């Protein structure tokens, strides 16, 4: 399999503080890859840098063989990368439908098929098409954030802690949708603190600690690794 995304020795600073200290990893096309790590490890920073919201100090982001390091977000998104941001960040005073439409802002073609697709993945959203985003429950907001990201017809969907603040049943729902979306051909880069679910879902996992990758393996391997179990699974 070829790599859809390659991160090479990525370094990111905020002011003088180095938040990402030379990280390298690959995302294989068609897979679900996860990046786990505790608070402040630099997970969100890496995703924001890939998508161009934060600028890299050095290193490269290669997407489908093309160097997209520090390109405009606008350009990166239109090339097929999307991010479901941490905390969902849906637009509270727009309707569900408008939130989906803004997700397709880069496109100029007909959206009706994609809206139907998103509604078929999340029937709850269809019932609430006219409801304001801000009045949705946390789980519904997460569904909307995923649906909105899908509206750009991404090749790679990055998700920043989709399980944050959600009840276990909803988390299970979200993860089964993630697998479903992946089956439909979208590569997924998943960032999680909920290591258990993430490792069970991903084919390959990277462990990030204070700006460095400290461990790599298949989801299955890391799930049974002693150090991981202790640090991230609490067992």
């Amino acid at each position, binding site marked *: 399999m070829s790599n859809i995304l390659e991160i090479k020795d990525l370094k990111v600073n905020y002011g003088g503080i180095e938040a990402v200290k030379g990280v390298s990893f690959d995302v294989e096309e068609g897979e679900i890859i996860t990046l786990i790590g505790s608070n402040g490890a630099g997970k969100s920073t890496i995703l924001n840098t890939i998508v161009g919201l934060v600028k890299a100090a050095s290193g490269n982001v290669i997407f489908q063989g093309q160097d997209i390091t520090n390109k405009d977000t*606008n350009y990166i998104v239109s090339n097929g990368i999307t991010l479901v941001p941490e905390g969902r960040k849906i637009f*509270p005073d727009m309707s569900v439908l408008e939130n989906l439409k803004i997700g397709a802002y880069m496109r100029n073609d007909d959206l009706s098929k994609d809206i139907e697709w998103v509604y078929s993945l999340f029937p709850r959203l269809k019932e609430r098409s006219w409801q304001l985003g801000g009045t949705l429950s946390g789980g519904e907001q997460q569904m909307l954030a995923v649906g909105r990201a899908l509206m750009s017809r991404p090749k790679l969907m990055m998700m920043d802690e989709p399980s944050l603040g959600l009840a276990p049943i909803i988390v299970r729902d979200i993860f089964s949708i993630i697998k479903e979306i992946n089956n439909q051909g979208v590569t997924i880069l998943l960032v999680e603190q909920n290591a258990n679910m993430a490792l069970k879902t991903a084919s390959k996992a990277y462990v990030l600690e204070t700006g460095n990758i400290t461990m790599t393996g298949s989801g299955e391997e890391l799930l049974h690794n002693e150090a991981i179990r202790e640090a991230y699974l609490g067992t």
Partner: protein
Amino acid sequence: MSDFIQANLPYILAGISVGGQYALIAIGYTMVYGILRLINFAHGDVFMAAGLIMIFATASLPMYISIPLVIIATVLLGVVIERVAYKPLRSAPRMSVMISAIGVSYLIQNCALYFTGGLPRTYPAIPWLSDSITILGATTKRVTAITPILTIILVLALVLFIKKTKVGLAMRAVSRDFQTSRLMGVKIDTVISMTFIIGCLLAAIGSLLYFTNYQSVTPTAGAMPGLKAFVAAVFGGIGSIPGAVIGAFLIGIVENIIKGIGWTTFSDAFTFVLLIVILMVKPTGIFGEKNTDKV
């Protein structure tokens, strides 16, 4: 009541008319605030500049070229101000941008002083608009009747534009959250420019109507209508377009009725008393943003 209306009809008509003109300026304040959280102190001066551009344009060009020229030049002025004075400060503290806006305001006034020599310049009579007409027995210029109608049409068009178009959707997104809008592929700078284009377009149209009524332009001619439009925007809840329009009509009508009663000296004071009262009673204005930010 009907006696009162009959006796004060000219003032009420004048009030509705000037209210419409304030509304056209107020939209520029409120939209820019909605997107950038910036009180664009230079907006009243852009309005004044539109008046001067008209005077200089009509000195050598026919009316049908001058009017579109004024509109285009005013829009360009607004976009250039944003690019030069505000955009470089995008990540600076809000106070810095506001100081920059005050600087631009003085710069425009001083340029105007230079070009006019400080003398009031006579605004050209725009044929049809300056003609006298009679409404319910009161004689007035046609602009008095045209202003509120044109204002309402423009406001409705703007509201529809923001509600229904893709650019409008992007404007609403950007006014909420820069980062997430970027993530959707929205070009923030384009949307911000668009806001200045709309604000200045309306201010230019407002200046055509306003100066047709007031007949002369001085370098500080934008200050008073600018301030009143600003108070209208605050009254309506800064960031809200319908709020700004309602506030503007209210200020226009009340200040003219005060003139009608014979208290002309106090008509401007009313606006500022209103500002103080709102800031004390309901600082977010009548349609102000509720803080729905969930953390």
